[in-house]
């Protein structure tokens, strides 16, 4: 995936600084970005995205739970997990399987690569 295709991206992260920075970065790379502070906020809006960038630790529903709900709803939106915890530990491997995860702090390249993987996988289903 190159900057040539402007994507419509949604970011869910409860940290305001992270939201602001990520939006700035992705916009600077030419994409459209909408930001949400919680899973509930995202669900409340109707529009879909080309890719959902989802923080794992959220107040209320966490990242895993949102992913599950979207799948149950049959939402096709590809998902990328971002996390402050580092990469998935062996015990979490099953939970992360099928969803690309990048650990904060991540470079723009890593994030774009993860987005490309998620989109090309076509679906968020394992």
């Amino acid at each position, binding site marked *: 995936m190159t900057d040539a295709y402007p994507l419509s991206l949604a970011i869910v992260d409860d*940290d305001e600084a992270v939201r602001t*920075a990520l939006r700035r970065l992705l916009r600077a790379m030419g994409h459209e970005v909408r930001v949400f502070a919680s899973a509930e906020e995202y669900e409340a809006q109707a529009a879909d995205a080309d890719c959902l960038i989802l923080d794992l630790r959220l107040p209320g529903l966490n990242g895993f739970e949102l992913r599950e709900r979207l799948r149950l709803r049959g939402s096709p939106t590809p998902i990328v997990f971002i996390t*402050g915890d580092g990469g998935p530990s062996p015990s979490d491997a099953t939970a992360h399987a099928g969803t690309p995860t990048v650990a*904060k702090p991540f470079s723009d390249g890593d994030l774009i690569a993860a987005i490309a993987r998620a989109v090309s996988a076509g679906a968020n289903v394992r």
Partner: protein
Amino acid sequence: MPAATNRQLAVRLAVGRALGRTRDLDDIYSAALDTLAECLEVSRASVLLFDPDGVMRFRAWRGLSSEYRAAVQGHSPWTPDSVDAVPLLVSDVTREPSLEEYQPVFAREGIAALGFIPLVSLGRVIGKFMLYYATPHAFDDEEVKLAEVIASAVAFAVERGRAHEMPRRSDSPQGYEPNASVIGPWEWEVPSDAPAAHPDGLPSGRLRQVRQCDIETDRDCLKILGLDGRLLYVNPAGVAQLGVEDSSTLVGRRWIDFWEEKDREVVEEAMARARAGTIGRFQRPTRTFAGTMKWWDVAVMPIVDAGGVVVQFKAVSRDVSAQWRTEVFQAGQHQVLEMIATGAPLAQVLTLLAHVIEDQYEGLRCQALLLDADGTHVRLGAAPSLPEEFSTLFDGQPVGPRVGSCGTVMQTARSVIVTEIRTDPQWDVLRDAAARNGLRSCWSAPILSSQKMVLGSFAMFCDTARGPCHEELRLLETAADLAGAAIDHHRSQEALRQSEERNRAILRAVPDLMFVFSDDGVYLDFHAKDPKELLVPPEAFLGKRMRDIMPPPLADSFSQAFERALATNEPERLEYSLDLSHEQRFFEACIVRCDSDKLLSIVRDITDRKRAELDAAAQRQELAHLNRVLILAEQSGALAHELSQPLAAILANAQAARHLLDRTPLDLDELRETLDDVIKSDKRAGTVIHRLRELLKKSNAVLQPLDLNEVTREVLDLTHSDLLLRRVPITTALSPGIPPVLGDRVQLQQVILNLVINACDAMSTVDPAERALKLTTVADDECVQIAISDRGVGIPDGALDSVFDPFVTHRADGLGLGLAISRSIVVAHHGRIQAENNADRGATFRCFLPLAGGTADVSRDSVVAMMSPG
């Protein structure tokens, strides 16, 4: 009242000394006035005596004009027949109606107050002395008592002096006043054929001249001796005094045989002097032919013929028994008083007293009995001349008939004279014992303390059935008096000794150093159970100022403590440390005022205790630190998460900026915002790192006013992600504007952190949807309260208090130290912590912390001391 007794004793000694030096009446009066001035501080006084015609006349005075004396001459509240005379004290002459007629005289003389002190001998007034005061004077009891002591001694001395004054001898034999104007050797003419006998028994010749003098001196024993020392003639007075019917039994005998063996040398010497033409004199005792011991003052003079050759001797002997007795008695009395004053054992004093009394008269044996402290039993004080089998009968007996008339004496506090023990009912019990030991009469007087309490009895036993003569009665009274002084003194000394012994026992028991300071900080004295505890030798600090010895900051502390102790009369405590040669030692001084102008400092070495305290504090510090480390270890995931957020923001912003720089035109505003965000995030990351460092440090408590809301928020920042991970939603109700508390930021953070983690742990088994954690802060007049409330499993009943005990845990893992450490921190902040179960579910932990600057102020020392090793 030991002081008063001592004073009286001292006065008696002084008086005894002053009056005992002289037999001359004028000297006696002078000594009396001196004593009055010295002991009573009365500079104007006078001595008056009754004339033979019963008129009171001035004998000696100080500070009185002749007009005054003339004006008051003859006035006296007493007559020679007065008995039981007591001092009359006139505090203000203007208010005494009986003296009204003398008011103008007093005014002119400048007299405003008077003391009339009777001189009493054998119960009768012989005179008085007067005390004069220029201003109205309130007489106190001690003064009056001392005046009576002086009066008694003066009366005695005056009597003695008067007896002595009777026809005075000059340098002729004592008491002998030859009628002729010729004083000296007599001329004597002895006709060789003079008949030996003469109607008068006198050799003939010019003896007639001598004979006239005999008549004048017939009071004395006059003897004429031949050169061989044999008696040629004894005058009638001498015959009587020697206790024979007539001189026939004496004439022809050697005079020297009349004297004791040991005294004969002196007699010989006197005769030798007479033989040599001068007068030989001596004073010696000898028994009369009636068996009575008498003291004689003897002068042996030569009788010369016309040619000046000594042909005979004239020996004139004056019976000075009374004076001698008196002098011996005075000396004995003096000795007894000195023994008392120098603290000789009571038994010794009483024994000496008995001997002194017994020496005065023959046939008398004395016994002193002491009343026990319980007032019901009698102990033998002294009876040196009574047979032991008799005197021991009294020992331990109850007061009453078992101790004869002495019992009555002690019960009634009055003297009792028993002239015939055989028939007196008081002696029923002891009659046989008395008879066995040849005791026929008993004269007994009570021994009284200075407070007129009965201390015992003094008795004189006589081997004939009679009553005492005047002198003997006076002797008895004096003996009882002296015995009283002895016992009083002994008891007060004993009480003093016991009190000192108690003090010494206390000192011995107290393993401390004590210092006495003057109120301006000079070392006056010290006591050290172990002299090694003194860090410098006594000579290095005694007499020096504390400021010159102690290091200045310590000297300041001591100074302040001294001031407070002097002002409040309460003990002041001061803890301090001194660096000694190889170690630091800690001391506690308790400082208290003593006397009115001194300070007592009791110093205790508390190094061991202090070290233990410091060790304990260090241990607590270690534990607290360990607790923080463990928390942080638990929280490390959360912390890493916390750091990852700002780092992610920084990286994203930086990379965004790179992209923005490739655009044309450059959006400078966007770039600026980007960089600002980078800076913000970096600072945020820095704060997390800083907090981390703080918690990991093992630092000493730093006290400052803190906003508990702010501290709470800092803790929530740290635990934010952990709480998210644990699915614990937090609500806060932090009252705005709560007043500050004084405390250590890190330690209070630790408490809240412990409680939050504890609350989360309590909810770990609870359905996430049910979980909730609420933090509340609220303040009142005295303290700020923070409450952490959870909806967890709650605290088992009965464990609400023990939940704060160390190693009590309801978790499967964990040390159970978090709550214990939290409590110790809260307590060190002078606050309290408590746990309660909520009504619906879960528990609430409340911390109460006193306001900074409030009444329950947290002292730096307690928090610092408790939580740091110094």
